[in-house]
């Protein structure tokens, strides 16, 4: 491994700390799709997203498939090609699995995006004689491990190295500005999707290359385009100083504790957690890292478990113990209620928020005959084991809060107090996910928990409701009746009869003054488990209220209210 003195190009002792090697797999999405579907390597592959080609492999491209054309055009040019819809998860999964080999070879690297990774050249100085031999060694190791083709690119900044990798180039030290100046302005799209709108504006202003942009005065660019413009200007001038987040090793930081006797007392659990959390945080700290998210798992004596991931801004033992206490209370309270209703006994108001959810102490439960050990009712026995896993790790720098986050600390404090009083699910932050109806696009997540969308928000949802949308979401079975009191049927072509009255389950009825066209949604017919067929209808009642109705399995539901 020692440097060979005969070589012409020794790595200089003082490497520019930003000099970076970028390795990129050309047409990564196509490669990932081929691996996902286990395709023959000679099959041409075309990847579609939003109806447009976003990646195609070399075979398909030699047949004339170019990026941005539609499905039909691609099939016309290359009829034997396998056309696959883009799958973001497969993209990421295959790449992170493949680059695992790199963990053995280099000290530090960063995954920029699926298909692209960056290695600071400073970290290769001790292992390899010069840049070309380092690249050769890394690529041959990666290729023999994964079988993918890699394009290398070396330059003085990460952004320039990404551009260089697309041309498989090595930019000499100090020549990066000249290299960047010649690149077209739309190269900025490789720096991130947020630059897309700037690219258009720059184009209209007559800035054709990155050199044109870099030649402008930095202050002028900042005052016209703000922070984003300043960053674009820095990138174009080869001054990108964004520190990269290092790829954190796949090693897991976790601690576990088994209890001698199961307990339902959340204060006991909180007390035990404090020590456990201190161990975990010390472990993480020893590696020079900071933990920003934590996964808490509780296991009951009967084998049931509850897992939640929490984001905590100022991570401490107390904060973790609080989260665990909330989680345990909510879980045990929820299970004891369902357990009770199964045994048929009346539910005495446990009131989910009480600090002690031990049922036997409740006066209402005292006079009930003991139902005996019930395997479902694990709240009686309680929690037997806890485990804490550091779910998101970052360097200390990455966790620093910005000065410009206005009064978040105070807000966090207030909301945590409310969560402590009413349970974690009392404070919800809004988010959007994919779906057709407002009830499906709603993604309310408890404060400081990681949102987990079930449906891809970026996928197309044909037939989705357009603005104006209902203000509140409901799910109430109702009857929609014709003039002579019969239920209104719905067919794909439209309603069978004119709806005149709507009857609510509580007994009230209201006359329908006007109604929209009905539009059906049919999805998932290829998979019985996900098959959906429903018809939506908007009505305006005589009192001027607008409602969104939906008919599913022969029953009308009130799904949204405009109020």
């Amino acid at each position: 491994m020692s440097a060979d003195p005969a070589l012409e190009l020794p790595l200089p002792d003082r490497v520019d700390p930003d000099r970076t090697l970028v390795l990129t797999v050309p047409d990564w999405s196509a490669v990932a799709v081929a691996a996902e579907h286990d395709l023959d390597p000679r099959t041409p592959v075309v990847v579609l997203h939003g109806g447009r080609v976003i990646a195609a492999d070399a075979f398909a491209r030699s047949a004339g498939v170019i990026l941005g054309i539609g499905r039909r055009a691609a099939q016309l040019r290359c009829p034997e090609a396998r056309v696959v819809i883009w799958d973001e998860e497969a993209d990421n999964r295959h790449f992170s699995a493949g680059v695992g080999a790199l963990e053995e070879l280099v000290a530090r690297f960063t995954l920029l995006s699926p298909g692209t990774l960056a290695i600071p050249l400073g970290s290769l100085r001790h292992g390899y004689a010069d840049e070309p031999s380092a690249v050769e060694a890394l690529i041959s190791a990666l290729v023999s491990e994964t079988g993918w083709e890699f394009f290398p690119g070396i330059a003085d900044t990460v952004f320039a190295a990404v551009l260089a990798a697309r041309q498989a180039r090595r930019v000499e030290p100090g020549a990066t500005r000249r290299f960047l100046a010649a690149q077209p302005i739309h190269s900025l799209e490789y720096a991130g999707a947020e630059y897309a709108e700037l690219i258009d504006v720059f184009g209209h202003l007559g800035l054709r290359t990155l050199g044109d942009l870099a030649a402008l005065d930095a202050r002028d660019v900042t005052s016209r385009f703000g922070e984003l413009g300043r960053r674009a200007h820095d990138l174009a001038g080869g001054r990108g100083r964004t520190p990269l987040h290092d790829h954190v090793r796949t090693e897991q930081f976790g601690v576990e504790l088994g209890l001698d006797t199961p307990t339902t007392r959340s204060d006991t659990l909180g007390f035990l957690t404090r020590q456990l959390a201190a161990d975990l945080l010390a472990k993480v700290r020893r590696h020079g890292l900071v933990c920003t998210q934590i996964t808490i798992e509780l296991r009951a004596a009967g084998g049931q478990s509850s897992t939640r991931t929490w984001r905590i801004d100022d991570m401490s033992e107390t904060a973790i113990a609080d989260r665990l206490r909330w989680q345990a209370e909510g879980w045990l309270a929820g299970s004891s209620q369902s357990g009770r209703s199964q045994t048929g006994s009346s539910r005495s108001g446990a009131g989910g928020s009480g600090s002690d959810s031990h049922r036997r102490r409740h006066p209402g439960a005292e006079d009930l005959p003991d139902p005996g050990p019930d395997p479902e009712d694990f709240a009686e026995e309680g929690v037997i084991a806890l485990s804490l896993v550091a779910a998101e790790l970052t360097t200390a720098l990455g966790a620093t809060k910005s000065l410009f986050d206005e009064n978040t600390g105070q807000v966090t404090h207030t909301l945590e107090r409310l969560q402590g009083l009413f349970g974690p699910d009392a404070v919800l932050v809004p988010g959007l996910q994919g779906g057709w109806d407002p009830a499906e696009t709603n993604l309310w997540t408890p404060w400081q928990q990681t949102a987990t969308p079930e449906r891809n928000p970026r996928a197309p949802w044909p037939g989705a409701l357009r603005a104006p949308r209902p203000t509140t979401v409901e799910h109430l079975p109702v009857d929609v009746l014709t003039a002579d009191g019969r239920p209104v049927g719905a067919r794909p072509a439209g309603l069978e009869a004119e709806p005149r009255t709507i009857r609510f389950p509580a007994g009230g009825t209201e006359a329908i003054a006007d109604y929209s066209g009905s539009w059906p949604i049919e999805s998932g017919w290829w998979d019985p488990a996900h098959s959906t067929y429903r018809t939506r209808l908007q009505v305006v009642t005589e009192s001027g209220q607008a409602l969104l109705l939906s008919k599913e399995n022969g029953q009308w539901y009130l799904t949204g209210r405009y109020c």
Partner: protein
Amino acid sequence: MPLVEQLSREMGISTATALFHGHAPRPVHPVLAPLFRRGGLPRGEIVAMTGPQSLSCALATIAEATTEQKWCAGIGLGEPAVSSIADLGVDLDHFVNVVTPAQDWLRVASILIESFDILVVDPGYQPSAGEQARLLAKVRERRISLISLAPAKGSTEQIEITDTRWSGTEHGRGRLRSCQVVARSQTGVHRFLLPGPDGTPAEVPARTVPTPVPAPMPRRTRPVVRSVS
């Protein structure tokens, strides 16, 4: 010692306008501005918004402030549709929905007043006069804006939506497009679209105004039609 200096030393008032500046109303969507006496959502006061479409009206009112990183919380609103909140222009990063039992709304509000800027409350019950007075005092002290979706004692501005007219459905041939609302406030009777065709508040298009309206306006065209109530 000159009076000005004395005031600034002893009371922290640097200029005469600073007296009023601390209470400057929060900016709102231009279509909604004429509803309020001072052209924006007042601080340290309770605003009552009632009638149909009042939740949309409240969310549209807070939209401008949330985009300026002011924190807003909703209490007792049920399950709002996130898509419509986003349509009305609310910054989702500064909105939280608090789901607590209806009888706890006053306790929740008193906790949130400590650090939030705007609260939208659908009160679960009418508080007693004493509780009401303490809430009002707290609102005034923290200078937060509280929008109540039910008539509230001590509210300084009352906005009541008296009429809504949806358009676009056309008896089975269209879909909901917009809603023309008539709102009565202390500044008169106003007519505008909430939501408009794109989900945000909008002015009534000139041609669909049902009554002939005096077209010339002395100042720049106002988004609403005023009449003396």
